[in-house]
Structure formats: structure tokens, C-alpha cells
């Protein structure tokens, strides 16, 4: 069906209509978002932390999967743009009553939503919503706030913002992503963003059970030995290990994982002396990261959160200004 094969996140002028994934975005799209975000960073320090860019617009947070952190940052970002925010925990309402996903979307669109921020446990769910809206309500925008294992583009963008803030130039960096790449939408979004921005070496570090096939086709070097993988890197992105994956057929135990892949001060010392340590949160201290590193001088984990608000403001204001 030809309509499905058009990139659903771009309008006919190649502008962002929705933000569904970083894959396929041009460097100029990403630069524009990061530049816009930097103009918003100062707003949070003002006494009145608001700009009127989305006054009168309604943003619906549609979280089909639990999240406190991401939902809150989107809510704050919307409010700082003066939008009205409606939080819907769909898990607990419509779908359990048997209403289909697209029925839910149609109903909310009929309430004159301007933007949906969608999190869903299934990879690709925001695509289905965006494609449906492209056919029915082309004035409504969709922001993917995390879909299955597929993408978490605003996290990827805030990671890029953080790296740019500390490292300025992407084209001479070595970046290592450590941990459960297999299940991580953050890793996938980071990889696409890093390669698009010209990072010459992206590394993925983890045991074979947590490394998906096909990473080399995404331009990634894989390492199973963390000591080798961290050697001389500029940026370390640690991934969260989900509780349910700490013991079973993927990994024997959290203890053994920490022993083999936990980021300790000794391992951090293998990276460049000015390397930064990132983590999308929430952290498992003592599982993927040692507290001495998490609280150490090279960690930029809290600035990531702060930048995340500005980046989400940038994404939402850019989308709101785009017309199909």
C-alpha cells in the first residue's frame, strides 16, 4: 500500500509532522531540534518558567505502558510551552473495556487534541496512530514517547543534546552503549542519532544474550568484554537492566552481571580521562552502575534530565508549528 511506504513522520515538504523515530531523520532535522532546545534551556531558570508557544493547544499524554519519569517530563515541557495537558493512563481505562486503540484515538481527536504523546509496549504502535491520523486528522501530531523495543526518540535527542553540551563536536567521538541493547529502545534511538550526527565509532557492549543481531548493519561495533569496549571512549551510555531480566535464560544473576558489566571506577578509568557517563534512568545502583560512578564527577545523569525538558519543549513546539 503506497501510503504506508511514505515516511509517515514527514509531511510532503519533508518537515517533521510527527516524531516517531530518529532513523531516517536528516542531520539538519536533529540540529534544528537541538538548536531550538538550547534556546529553551534558560527558560527553566527564569522566575516565570513559561513561553506562550503552545497556548490554547491541547496535549494528550497517552501512556499505554507505565511511566512516571517520561510522562512527567512531557507534562512539564507542555506546561512550560503554555499548552493544556491531559494525562491518560489508558492501561487502566479504555483498552481494558475492549475499545480498540484506533477508537480511542478517534475519540480523543474528536475532543480537539492537537498532539498525542504516546507510549506503548508494542514496537510500531505510534506509527499506526500517526498513519491513521494522516488519513483522518492531518492536523494532529504524534510524539513517540517510547514504543516497545523500537524507539524512544526524545530520549535519543536529549542524549545528543547532552553529548553536544559537553563534547561540542560529534565527529571525533567514540561512544559506548553498555548493557541490554536487545530490549532497549533508547539504544536504538541513540545509535541512529549518533551515526546520523557523524560519530565515527559507536560501540555496543554486553553479553551475547543481550546483543541483537544486525548491529553491524546499523554501523555499530560490538564488544562482549567491557574492558576492551570502554578503552579510550569519550562517552559511556549505560542502559537500565530490567528486573525481570536479571535472572533467567538471558542472565544468571544481577551479581554476576555487575561483576561482568557493571560500571565501576576502575572500568571508567579505561575510558578517556574526560569521558562522560550517561544513563536514561532509573538507575539500578550496584547492578549496572556503581554508586561511586553514578555520583562521581564524570556523571552527567542529572543534567540529562534537565536538558530533557528543553528537548521535549523543542520537539513539541516544532511539531506544533508544522502543518500537513
Amino acid at each position, binding site marked *: *500500500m*503506497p*501510503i*504506508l*511506504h511514505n*515516511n*509517515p513522520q514527514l509531511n510532503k515538504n519533508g518537515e517533521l509532522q510527527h516524531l516517531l523515530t530518529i*532513523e531516517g531523520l536528516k542531520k539538519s532535522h536533529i540540529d534544528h531540534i537541538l538548536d531550538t532546545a538550547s534556546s529553551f534551556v534558560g527558560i527553566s531558570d527564569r522566575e516565570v518558567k513559561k513561553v506562550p508557544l503552545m497556548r490554547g493547544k491541547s496535549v494528550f499524554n497517552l501512556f499505554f505502558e507505565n511511566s512516571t519519569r517520561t510522562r512527567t517530563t512531557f507534562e512539564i515541557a507542555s506546561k512550560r510551552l503554555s499548552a493544556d495537558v491531559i494525562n491518560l493512563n489508558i492501561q487502566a481505562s479504555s483498552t481494558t473495556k475492549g475499545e*480498540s*486503540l*484506533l477508537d480511542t484515538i478517534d475519540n480523543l481527536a474528536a475532543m480537539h487534541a492537537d498532539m498525542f504523546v504516546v507510549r*506503548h509496549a*508494542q*514496537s*510500531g*504502535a505510534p*506509527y*499506526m496512530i500517526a*498513519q491513521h491520523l494522516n488519513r483522518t486528522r492531518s492536523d494532529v501530531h504524534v510524539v513517540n514517547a517510547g*514504543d*516497545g*523495543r*523500537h*524507539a524512544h526518540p526524545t530520549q535519543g535527542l536529549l542524549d545528543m543534546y547532552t553529548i553536544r553540551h559537553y563534547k561540542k563536536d560529534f565527529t571525533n567521538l567514540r561512544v559506548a552503549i553498555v548493557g541490554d541493547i536487545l530490549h532497549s*529502545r533508547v539504544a*536504538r534511538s541513540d545509535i541512529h542519532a549518533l551515526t546520523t550526527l557523524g560519530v565515527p565509532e559507536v560501540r555496543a557492549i554486553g553479553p551475547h544474550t543481550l546483543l*541483537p*543481531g*544486525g*548491529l553491524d*548493519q*546499523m554501523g555499530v561495533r560490538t564488544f562482549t568484554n567491557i574492558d576492551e569496549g570502554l578503552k579510550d571512549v569519550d562517552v559511556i551510555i549505560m542502559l537500565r537492566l530490567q528486573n525481570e531480566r536479571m535472572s533467567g535464560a538471558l542472565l544468571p544473576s544481577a551479581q554476576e552481571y555487575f561483576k561482568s558489566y557493571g560500571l565501576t571506577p576502575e572500568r571508567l578509568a579505561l575510558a578517556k580521562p574526560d569521558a562522560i557517563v550517561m544513563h536514561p534512568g532509573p538507575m539500578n545502583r550496584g547492578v549496572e552502575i556503581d554508586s561511586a560512578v553514578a555520583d562521581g564527577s564524570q556523571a552527567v545523569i542529572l543534567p540529562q534530565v534537565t536538558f530533557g525538558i528543553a528537548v521535549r519543549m523543542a520537539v513539541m513546539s516544532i511539531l506544533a508549528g508544522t502543518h500537513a
Partner: protein
Amino acid sequence: MKLHIKNGRVIDPANGVDAVQDLFIVDGKIAAIGAAPAGFAADQSIDASGLVVAPGLVDLSARLREPGYEYKATLESELQAAMQGGVTSLVCPPDTDPVLDEPGLVEMLKHRARIVDQANVHPLGALTVGLKGQALTEMAELTEAGCIGFAQAEEPILDTTVLLRAMQYAKTFEYTVWLRPQDAHIGRGGVAHAGPLASRLGLSGVPVMSETIALHTIFELMRATGARVHLCRISSAAGLDLIRAAKKEGLNLTADVGVHHLHMTDADIGFFDSNARLTPPLRSQRDRDAIRAALVDGTVDAICSDHTPVDDDEKLLPFGEASPGATGLELLLALTLKWAQDQPHGAQDAQGALALAIGKITCEAARIAGLPAGTLGVGAAADVVLFDPAARWLVDGKALASQGKHTPFLGYELAGQVRATVVRGRVAYQR
């Protein structure tokens, strides 16, 4: 009733015929090809100038969804789809609700199909009760009721001992066991070919080894039991290599592929198009090319539509939640012809490629199913399809007779359109 089909290009691979000839049908049987039999006076005649006249198609896998899933499709809708697709005999898998594991259910299905009186319906019985992989079904009784073989549909048997016993028992009566090779554990819950695309899209994968591990097991059990096995819907190059070797070894087996897999790859999932969610999953281009080559070299005996009507409620969902399957009865012919036209393997000339392709959906399929169909030989049941190989048509859900409106080929223009379908000498469909 005497029917005269004149001036058509008769292609009958079963008898090595490819020539413009007239076809004469008397009382539901082929009476003559070429010259009219003595005293023939047609009650009805069809001018087939410019059309191909071929045996009615034999489809080795078409889900009719009865009993149990009438909201997805009914015998009426799907057998009408068969007529529009030129399919005059079809084999239906046992994964209905209830499962086809009791003679009464099979008799009921056969009875319903007789009333509808269109395509010939040949059910596969369940190999194990409820497809649960624990207890054998009454295969002899089921055969008497009309089953032509025994299958597990999409439910792999967990306990290999049960599969061994089932094959021993089937061998006792010389029944054919129809298996789609898939490991019971590896790839379970997977929704796409395990490869770079699934990794990128974050979709859980079905590795090729799910197919190859199962094939190794099946072949060992065949060596031990001597059972005859038909392998359904092979999806991978590695699986085809194993089958090629097993055939060479002399194992008593045949194999088919689903018609979608001749053309599409996992890349056709595009932006999570759930119409491309199929079982087995669309695999890589290398696998697709291997399937095409295996059809030419005979490793794969037949092409099936793998017709699986799915309703909107179960398809308009995120990719991983959508029900697998696509409507296929009305696309089987055109998609098979498309393969013949692509002529990927220079050895075949256009004429030979067309006959080869038609053979894969007529006589070869009939041979696998043990049916006296797929032939225009004198005395055979007069199941015939007339089609215009050049007529182009747009695949549009609304225009399909099937209640299943979902196919990854929506919006494609295909060549090859059925003009008439004759079942047992009666013109059952005409466009």
C-alpha cells in the same frame, strides 16, 4: 450437460499440453481435447480466444474459518473467493474451533461444502486431539469422513515422542503427515524474521533455525518410521538446502511454499505494516531468491495461497499484536504468474516458465494431496479455469469476494485475471 470451450490456449502440465485447442466437457468430465467426440452438441459454449484454459487450481492451504470463526469468514464467502480465483480444489488445515479432530466435524464441513457446491473442499484432520500434541486422533475414522492427511497446523508438538508415535501410526495406514517445520520453543512469540530489520524495528524475531531444527527432527523421525511427510510453507534458504538433501537421500517427502514468499521479504514490513505480518514470517531477499530457485529445481513441489482471512479488529493493531495471515485465494493465480513472468532463472523460456508455474498450482499440488485433480486428461473431472494472462487488475480489498480484506499486496497491480471457473462441468463463475 455439454460444454464447449473453444479457441483457448490449453495449458495442461499434467499431460504436457500447451496448444490452442478446443475442450469438450460432457456430464462433468473432460470428454475430449481437440476434435469433438462423436455426436457432441454443446448446451453451452464459451469462446476462450486470447485466454488460457488450464486445470482448475489446487490450493494446498486455504483457511475457510469454519467452524468457529465465522466472523472472520464463512464457507459461502471463501468458496466464492475460490471461484473468483480459479481454485477448484482446496485443502483446509484443521485449526478451526473446534479443531477438526472428530469425524463428525469433518463430515459437517464436507456436507456444508457440498451444499455450497463450488470448490471441492478437502480437510486435513488434526494429527493430535485438539492439536495439543498429546493424544493421537482417530486417523482411520477421520479418513473415512473425508480427511486427506493429518496436520498440526500452527501448533508444533512439544513432546517428540508423540510426533514419533503419530508418524508411526500414520505410516501404518500410509497416511501423509503435513507439517510446517517450526521449533516449539525457538522463535515462539516472534513476529518477524530474525534479522537486521527486526533488530532495527525492535520486533521479536523468528530465527531460521526454528525451521531448520524442526526439519532435522522430522527427517530423523522419517528415517525411523518411513512415514510420508508433506512440508508446508518453507520459508528459508537453509531449510530448502536441507530438503534438497533429504530428497536426494530418498526420503518420502514433498514441500510447498506460500505464494507471498515468492515475492516479498521482511523489508516489505516497511513502517510496521501489519498486512505483512505472516506466518511463517517474510524472510530475507536471499531466502526469497532461494525459494524461487527451489521451485525451478523441484525442491519445492507446489505453491499454496496460504489463504488466511483476518478481520479488521484483529489486523488493525500494532504489528506485534496483529493476527498473522493474508487473504490469498484470489491472488494465487496472478502471483504465481508474476513469478513465471519474472523468469529469474534463464533456463526456462516464457512458455516453459508458464507451464512450470501452472503445474505448481495444479497437477503438482494434486499429486501431493493425492487428489484426482489438476489435470485436463480425458475422463478427469471437468474442473477448469479460463484466464486472461495479460489482463491487469488492482488489488483492492473491497473488490475481493473473500471476507479477508488484508494482504500485503493491497494497491498492487497484477496481471492475470480469471474469466471463468468450471467445477465438475458446471460454469460456476464467469466475469
